[in-house]
């Protein structure tokens, strides 16, 4: 059954807190079944986020150093270790109700499949490395981080982050996802041309719709205000 899905595509960069609050707000209402599924596609200003499995040693820079570089550090409620978000990276937060028998593993595979499909359209062969970690890789290098949390085991939170033309030197600040031996790459580096977020966005939208059977519609105007920072408290 195709899922009616509100699509949020805020312009510019959205502060992490604002997006995080909006995502949780939407998820709570999705849980109560008062809104349809939703998906947010956005870019953040530079921010390091630490999941529950983040170990201090995975942050190479100190939090002060990160701040000095112009990045915030947030400790958040998803699983996984540290990751980086910033300009040039397309971040997706699907807020989907997984139903009465939620299959989180299948949902993660669908996210991975959507990113792999996106890469294929752009001409790069990506793959999952289920034995190593959730995410999408090119060779040994991660091009898309995936980290998901569920609300009450059934509504999805957080999501994926595809490096389009991200400044990869930001990743020097962390051991990405706690995997010291894995590098990080971007679609631009893989394709040896500038692949922007705006080029990737419609492809991702299409791939998500196909893999998760979503029918996107623009979110109502008053809902869009959720993500128009700094109106979000």
């Amino acid at each position, binding site marked *: 059954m195709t899922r009616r899905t509100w699509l949020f595509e805020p312009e510019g960069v959205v502060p992490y807190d604002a997006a995080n609050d909006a995502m949780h707000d939407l998820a709570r209402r999705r849980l109560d079944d008062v809104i349809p599924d939703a998906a947010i596609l956005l870019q953040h200003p530079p921010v390091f986020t630490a*999941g*529950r*499995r983040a170990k201090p040693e995975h942050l190479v820079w100190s939090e002060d150093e990160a701040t000095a570089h112009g990045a915030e550090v947030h400790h958040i*409620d*998803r*699983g996984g270790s540290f990751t980086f978000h910033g300009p040039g990276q397309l971040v997706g937060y699907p807020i989907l109700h997984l139903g009465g028998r*939620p*299959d*989180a*593993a*299948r*949902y*993660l595979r669908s996210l991975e499949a959507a990113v792999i499909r996106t890469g294929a359209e752009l001409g790069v062969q990506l793959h999952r490395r*289920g034995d190593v970690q*959730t995410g999408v890789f090119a060779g040994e290098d991660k091009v898309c981080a995936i980290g*998901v*949390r*569920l*609300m*009450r*085991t059934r509504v999805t939170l957080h999501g994926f982050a595809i490096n389009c033309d991200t400044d990869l030197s930001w990743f020097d600040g962390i051991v990405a996802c706690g995997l010291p031996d894995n590098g990080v790459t971007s679609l631009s580096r893989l394709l040896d041309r500038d692949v922007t977020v705006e080029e990737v966005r419609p492809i991702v939208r299409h791939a998500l719709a196909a893999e998760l059977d979503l029918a996107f519609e623009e979110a109502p105007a008053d809902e869009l205000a959720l993500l128009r920072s700094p109106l979000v408290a």
Partner: protein
Amino acid sequence: MTSIQMPQLGETIVEGTILKWLKAEGEAVERDEPLFEISTDKVDTEVPSPVAGTLTTILVAEGETVPVGTRLAEVASDEDSAVAPAGEAAASSAPPTSLASGGPSGETPGQGASDASTSPASAPAAPAAPTAGASSAPDRGPRSQILSPLVRKLAQEHGIDLSTVSGTGTGGRITKADVMAAVTSGPGPTSAAVVAAAAPAAVTPPSVGAAAVEGETVEPMSHIRKAIATHMVASVNETARAWTMVEVNVEHLVRLRERAKDAFLAVHGVKLTYLPFVVRATVDALQAFPAVNSRIAGDDVVTPRAVHMGIAVSYDAGLIVPVIRNADVMNSVGVARAIADLAARARSHQLKPDEVQGATFTITNPGPYGSLISVPIINQPNVGILSLDGIQRRPVVVEGDAIAVRSMVYVSMSWDHRLIDGEIATRFLARVKQNLESWDFAEDLGI
């Protein structure tokens, strides 16, 4: 009482870690209110309570990682009566699963009864006990040791030594009412008498870790080991175990297996052991004596029409009992295939939670390891567990009062005297014996 289990978040997610309990023991919880948070290798989630009620027991502590399906806590739903009788809670809340102590690793040469890679086996001495949940279970020791924060606090406030208080809660747990009763009755002879009267349920002090001594190694018991231990003891405590043995002449089965095993392997891709014959013979006996296929649930006796046969399989973590579902509709080939599949997946940790639950009867097979006679512990809530021990060539008296050498085996059953009596148990075993001695399994092998 509602058992809360580690949820299945997808087929490939096999275990989860308790990050945080959001409610304490004794605290009320609404239906669908988050009860705890878990982390898996893929996702984290908060898990809501399926019912409104009171969180009575936390069985798995924060930071512990347990398989999907493991019982984590118990919530007394608002619809439950205030205090469930201990036996009822135990009987209704525990789907049977993994059991028993791990068997010795060596196969006895010349035994020929079966092959270690395809044939389940259990320890000769102590094959089975039930556990709740998937392949592991709560491991906070006997319930009688678990004290809610409220009880601890009350006891402290009133200066009550909890080791002198007898518990009337589920499994002998000390409840708030017990503490208040102790406060009211005061110290002295009264409470001492209560302790004496309720000795089995009395609280024992928490175990103290062993100190390493020269020449000894000390390591913590695994979750599974502890779960096995808990459920072994629970079974022994809760069942009225009796045991009956018959001797079976399996001469023709040994010959049949010798004759057919190569062709069987070639045609069906699995080794032919004696276990499928025993499963078939036992299924027939269970159908003839349905009481042996039943279980106690509270004050009721539940008798399933189908036979779901639990087979004890030893593996690296201990012992587990995968279940051949609807064994009553299978021939020997189907049973052999099911056993080979379940045993292989048990040993590679690939069993799904529902494949180790719901056995209506259990068979353990220590024979290949060289046992002669075993007295297994009942896999609750089953009524009985049948043990197939080692086949031996020995002189027996045969027709015409002659003495001849025959392949003989002892087949025995531990059974729960609460539900059946000696007559049924013995007639059941006699039926198994008769089936094994008289049935011609050749056609059943499909070769």
